[in-house]
């Protein structure tokens, strides 16, 4: 590979990633509507295309053609920047994700930390959106959202930390490769180190709050705040917020799969007679990315199921869950991880 071609490959990868995320978001919104419909004994979208398959595509087309309404009292510059910042922060997080051994745009040796860090930029965008809209509901929503995201970053980080103590590296590629083995499922971090299952539960709870999804959707509580920080947004900018929400769900789910559930490895133990993929790097990439995305999408569907099952928590419950339950348990899990490593070193 020529050195000069690397940035252009990066641009190409970015383009592919954007296309993939946009397609995934279309499918995700459709799935969300269908899941909610089936849970509520409805049919969901049925008219546009077979079984309503093109409904979300039609919706996004509508959003793209709509007028950008900017409230006259809004701060025009911040109002315009905010959705871009929110989306770009999530989008940048994908650059550090290895989809298969070697299939990663930015092989950082602190990739896991990078994803967590880049997501925290989203908070700035949300604050800008809420403040720039000059709308009381948007501001309240933004303040709620930010306080919630900042609080839940801590249990999420603690849960990941307890896994990192076990893996001994922040490099997502190495974390993924460590979980390889002939016994499939048994080599996954959550199975190898059973105390990581509660760690995953903590992480999963925390990412529900970080993506502002039910039961932690206080920032967008329709009954009291209209739509929270994106109340004033319309058209393409609103679409960007939706895209960011779904992309964030996928990104954090991918992170969970990478760290806890065997990354790109299949759960099936090696069976003699299975085709040997070694040597065919493209085939390895396809199967690896397939397993990784499949497991992540399962988590995304789980998040949808949770959304349509649990009612919204109260703000005081939100804080109690975070500070009185998730954080102490997370600290305890790190302690267990540390003892485990000590025992491993001295035996």
């Amino acid at each position, binding site marked *: 590979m020529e*050195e000069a071609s690397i940035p252009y490959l990066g641009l190409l990868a970015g383009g592919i990633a954007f296309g993939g995320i946009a397609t995934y978001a279309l499918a995700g919104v459709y799935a969300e509507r269908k899941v909610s419909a089936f849970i509520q004994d409805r049919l969901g979208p049925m008219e546009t295309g077979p079984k309503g398959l093109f409904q979300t595509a039609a919706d996004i087309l509508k959003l793209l053609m709509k007028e950008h309404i900017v409230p006259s009292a809004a701060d025009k510059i911040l109002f315009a920047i905010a959705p871009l910042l929110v989306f770009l922060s999530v989008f940048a997080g994908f650059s550090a994700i290895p989809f298969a051994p070697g299939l990663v745009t930015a092989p950082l040796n602190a990739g896991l930390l*990078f994803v967590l860090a880049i997501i*925290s*930029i989203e908070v*700035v965008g949300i604050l800008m959106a*809420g403040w720039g809209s000059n709308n009381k509901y948007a*501001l309240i929503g933004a303040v709620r959202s*930010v306080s919630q995201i900042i609080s839940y970053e801590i249990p999420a980080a603690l849960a990941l930390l307890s896994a990192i103590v076990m893996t001994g590296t922040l490099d997502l590629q190495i974390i993924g490769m460590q979980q390889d083995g002939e016994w499939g499922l048994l080599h996954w971090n959550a199975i190898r180190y059973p105390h990581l299952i509660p760690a995953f539960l903590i992480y999963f709870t925390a990412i529900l709050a970080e993506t502002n999804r039910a039961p932690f959707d206080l920032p967008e509580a329709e009954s009291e705040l209209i739509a929270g920080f994106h109340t004033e947004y319309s058209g393409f900018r609103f679409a960007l917020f939706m895209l960011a929400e779904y992309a964030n769900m996928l990104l954090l789910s991918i992170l969970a799969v990478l760290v806890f559930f065997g990354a790109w490895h299949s759960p099936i133990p090696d069976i003699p007679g299975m085709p040997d993929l070694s040597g065919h790097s493209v085939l390895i990439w396809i199967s690896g990315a397939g397993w990784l995305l499949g497991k992540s999408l399962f988590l995304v569907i789980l998040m949808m199921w949770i959304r349509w099952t649990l009612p919204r928590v109260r703000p005081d419950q939100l804080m109690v869950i975070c500070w009185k339950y998730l954080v102490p348990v997370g600290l305890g899990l790190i302690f267990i991880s540390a003892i485990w490593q000590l025992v491993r070193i001295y035996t």
Partner: protein
Amino acid sequence: MTESVLIFWIFGLAILFGGALVAFTRNMIYAASGLFLSLFAIAGIFILSGADFLGIVQIIVYIGGVLILLLFGVMLTRKTTGDTLPPGSFRLPLGIGMSILLAVCMILVILPGNYEANPETGIPVLDDGTTSGIGVQMLTQYLLPFELVSFLLLTTLVGAAWLARRKPAQPRNLLTSDSDSPIKP
């Protein structure tokens, strides 16, 4: 090579632009946004120089922590729009003096350092900028400062929790205080 230099220049100009925005705008939120741009671009330069751990920590601490706190404070205390800082120069000579002092200090620190240029990019690279290097250094050579800082942070955490705790309820006198009794005569 040329791309790396180009990216370096982009980040460098972003730092300068953000800093200038902080210094010259009268709108508090624009100042905070300028700070965001500046801090983010510094993180970019760190990562470009191979110190990715430092860059990431820069984002987590300065953008995820300090800047958010700052924005929070500004947004909750100021009117939404049209509220700007009063014109006029506050202690201009002192500011200029401080800036010059800071610049001299930084030059004194930066100049004597030995920087080996990365042969690939031609950009100076710090060795041991990576995660494990920093970790080993922190737990061997700099163990005492590290533990002192962690003790300080623990103290602030406990202090914050103590300040935010619910005050113990005053013993209620049923005869005198009827303000919070559910049934009023």
